[in-house]
């Protein structure tokens, strides 16, 4: 069970890392964005659109939403102090949560899983959905890695993240790369949301707690390291469950999980898999 929820933490963590890598900001609204796009998918399904078609449409919508938010909102505070962007992402979080509650109401919605419950690969310990979800996360990770490593666009995005000024000089359209980053992150979030909803039930506060763990996972894995995020996600999921079951009981399991993460960070301040960057005066 911890493994399965871990893959959701990992998926959302990957989205967080993606935005951080491209913009050096943590997007606290990532979870709510994921929840909102999952509601888009739910609306499509309710209108009768078949699952995979609505999945694809939702990803497209998520991309547009993410890129759109960057262009309309984030771009305007690009040159502001770091904390201003933090508050903007908090504002987005609150706004998306409120909008979802207003438009879609608060009753929980069951959400279908594309992995049939009685599929051949389901076992009593790992349901078919949990296994499928883990595979989807790993596949997404592979795709993201391939994108950054082997495509020109990915290269351009990496360059933008490392050195925006030089990238501009070389002719890379930095602003577009940033918007692309937001769009892709939103897509990853949507995937996480659509994988999570069948297990957790879709409702406006679905992703709140998941964001906390995803944030922890992203940082634990090293906020700049895309590989670290999903791995850390699994670790967080497992630790959370073990802590609750065997160590301290459920009353402070969240606390314990976070404390463990913080302790790890103290000993490895750039994350378990992160690299210490050398800064010059």
């Amino acid at each position, binding site marked *: 069970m911890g493994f399965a929820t871990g893959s959701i933490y990992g998926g959302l963590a990957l989205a967080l890392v993606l935005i951080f890598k491209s913009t050096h900001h943590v997007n606290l609204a990532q979870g709510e964005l994921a929840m909102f796009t999952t509601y888009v998918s739910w609306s499509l399904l309710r209108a009768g659109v078949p699952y995979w078609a609505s999945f694809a449409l939702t990803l497209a919508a998520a991309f547009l939403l993410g890129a759109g938010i960057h262009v309309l909102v984030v771009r305007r505070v690009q040159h502001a102090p770091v904390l201003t962007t933090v*508050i903007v992402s908090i504002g987005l979080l609150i706004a998306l949560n409120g909008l979802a509650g207003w438009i879609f*109401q608060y009753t929980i919605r069951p959400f279908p899983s594309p992995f049939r419950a009685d599929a051949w690969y389901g076992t009593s310990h790992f349901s078919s959905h949990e296994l499928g979800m883990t595979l989807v996360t790993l596949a997404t990770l592979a795709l993201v890695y391939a994108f950054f490593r082997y495509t020109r666009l990915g290269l351009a995005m990496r360059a933008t993240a490392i050195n925006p000024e030089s990238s501009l000089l070389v002719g890379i359209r930095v602003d577009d790369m940033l918007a692309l980053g937001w769009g892709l992150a939103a897509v990853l979030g949507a995937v996480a949301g659509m994988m999570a909803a069948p297990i957790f039930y879709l409702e406006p506060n679905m992703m709140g707690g998941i964001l906390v763990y995803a944030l922890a996972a992203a940082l634990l894995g090293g906020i700049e390291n895309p590989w670290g995020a999903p791995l850390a996600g699994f670790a967080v999921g497992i630790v959370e469950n073990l802590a609750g079951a065997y160590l301290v*009981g459920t009353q402070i399991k969240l606390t314990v999980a976070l404390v463990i993460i913080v302790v790890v960070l103290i000993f490895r301040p750039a994350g378990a898999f992160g690299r210490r960057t050398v800064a010059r005066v």
Partner: protein
Amino acid sequence: MTRSVGLLLFASLIAAGSLGFFVSSYHLFQLTQFLVYAIALLGLNLLTGYSGQISLGHGAFYGLGAYATAIFLARGWLPYWAAVPSAGVVCLVVGFAFGLPALRLEGPYLALATFALAIATPQILKHDRLESWTGGVQGLYLEKPSPPHLLGEWLTADRWLYWLCLASVLAFYIVGLNLVRGRTGRALVALRDHPIAAAAMGIDVARYRSSAFAVSALFTGVAGALGALLTGFISPDSFTVFTSIDFLVGIVVGGIASVFGNFVGAAFIVLAPNLLGEISDAAPSAAYGLVLILFMILFPSGIAGAWRALAAGRPPKSTRSKAMTRRTTLMSTLIVLASGCQKTASHDAPGITATEIRVGQTMPYSGPASAYGAIGKASAAYFRMINDQGGVGGRKINLISLDDGYSPPKTVEQIRRLVEKDEVAFIFNVVGTAPNSAIQKYLNEKGIPQLFVATGADKWSDYKNFRWTMSWQPSYRVEARVYGKYINENKPDAHICVLYQNDDFGKDYLLGLQDALGPSYAEKVRKTASYETTDPSVDSQVVDLKASGCDTLVTAATPKFAAQAIRKVHDIGWTPLHFMTNVSISIGAVMQPAGPEKGVGIVSGAYLKDPGDPAFQNDPAVVQWHGFMQKYLPSADAADGNYVYGYAVSETLVQVLTQCGSDLSRENILRQATSLRGFKPSLALPGLELNTSPTDYRPFSQMQLARFNGRNFERFGPVINGE
């Protein structure tokens, strides 16, 4: 130059001090709250603004200061004037202890560590082991400091506290200004902007940074202490991560690394929710989020940053806008924010005129509990319906329902406003144990009925000490006693597990089971597992409970978690005797999402009809309810049980008001509320009725057990009188 500034300061101090005598106690509360936040924000700004260490966890220090003070006072160890500084010292030490390991962390990593602190704090405060100190989920009450006999009756406790806070603000701001304008401030700023260069110049990084943490914690801790004295009641869930986020919002809106910007930020935190509640009552959260974003786009360096830029004669750093537009936007924003303070003309009678009955209410329309806002919407719609039919005794019911975000300090503020500015007749159906606890004393002292509180905690039937406060729904504890009794009688050798929400709602079920099982509780209840509302899922708790070998399960969970539990219990092949809290037995909102076949056999103590239950399809009351929903709440989700609850409790209120006849004094309203005899709300289960008397403040003390058969809940057995 300095002399005129000094004179100005002195004059404004005198003005501020005397202000306490001229404003209503509602505005005084707001002012004092504003001062408290100003100190808290100064603390955070020292750390995050000047020292550059992001803290998403200052709510924890605020809460720590509050709890330290409450404990010192509750145990009688210290009087208030020593308790508050001592709480500050406690926070200083804890802040330093936290600051030391935090030295290793930078930027987002530090933010996460402080975030972890914010999340951990309510959990630790609620823990069983600390319950005897912290009061656990029930919280702690604080006495307002009693004023010295200086000005006789003129110096009320409220005004005295206001003066104390004013003095504290003065003291802290003088210290703060000295810090930031002196060597320390320069060192901190150097450390923030160029840490390596600063270290190379000989600035002791470790000392300055951890001291910054310690001092910042001290400031915010004292603010928390004063805030606790102001509200009079604290509970663990008053200090969630949202408190920390509010503080962060405050300092950024006011202006990072600005001393006076904190006042603007504090005003924003106090006033913005109220204003937004008036602008948009449909989605105040969405409005608040949008306002934040707009604010940051317009004023990226906060108000202080914009002011500085204007004073220096150039447009502030932002995208293409002229300085004039800037100035006007700035001024109009401030004016709009300040306008929340305006008084309206006062009326004659307390809430009653020839044409209307004014009813006051707060609801969590924003924030983590906003799902319950549906209750307020249902009540508002019900009263609209009654008004359309002519009202009660020729008078229309005017429900004034304000947002409190489920935050007790906000509830206190809004209730004071309702009583003093809007002059309502009484308070009706406020949601939540903590919010109601915070206002109980105030309302009882003023003789204002606090009717039909929307929580099932058992403490609302204390007619001896709080005769103006009354509950409505069956108490959770009584419900759990009914389950315990059933187990005793029908399954005496049961092994019981309990899944419960880690707050007063969930824990009341444990207490009720203890009541019913008595000494055999320890051996019968094999294992309990709790969850937080921020947990994504309870699946792992269910798996653990099954592993302990129980054959009986009591689940005290809200709808989402209840549905998860029902589904998981079935999916892992567990078939216990499963009791479910009647909060989560709605067929549309819980049983169907879980999968109707998975909930077969679930037992609950129902008291209301479920419109989603096929057995009630043709029931006249349910048909009427559907018609009401279609006409007055067409866009609402009828599967949401809150709309049934709101309808039923509003119907009860109308009964009380009708019973009042022409005498709508507060005394008579209370008298009629305590004289309900055999009243059957139309949506109550057949056979159940409400009864109250001056010594029985439990309107709904009956329920009937029902078992889910895959389609509906079949009632069985007799109507049970929980006591």
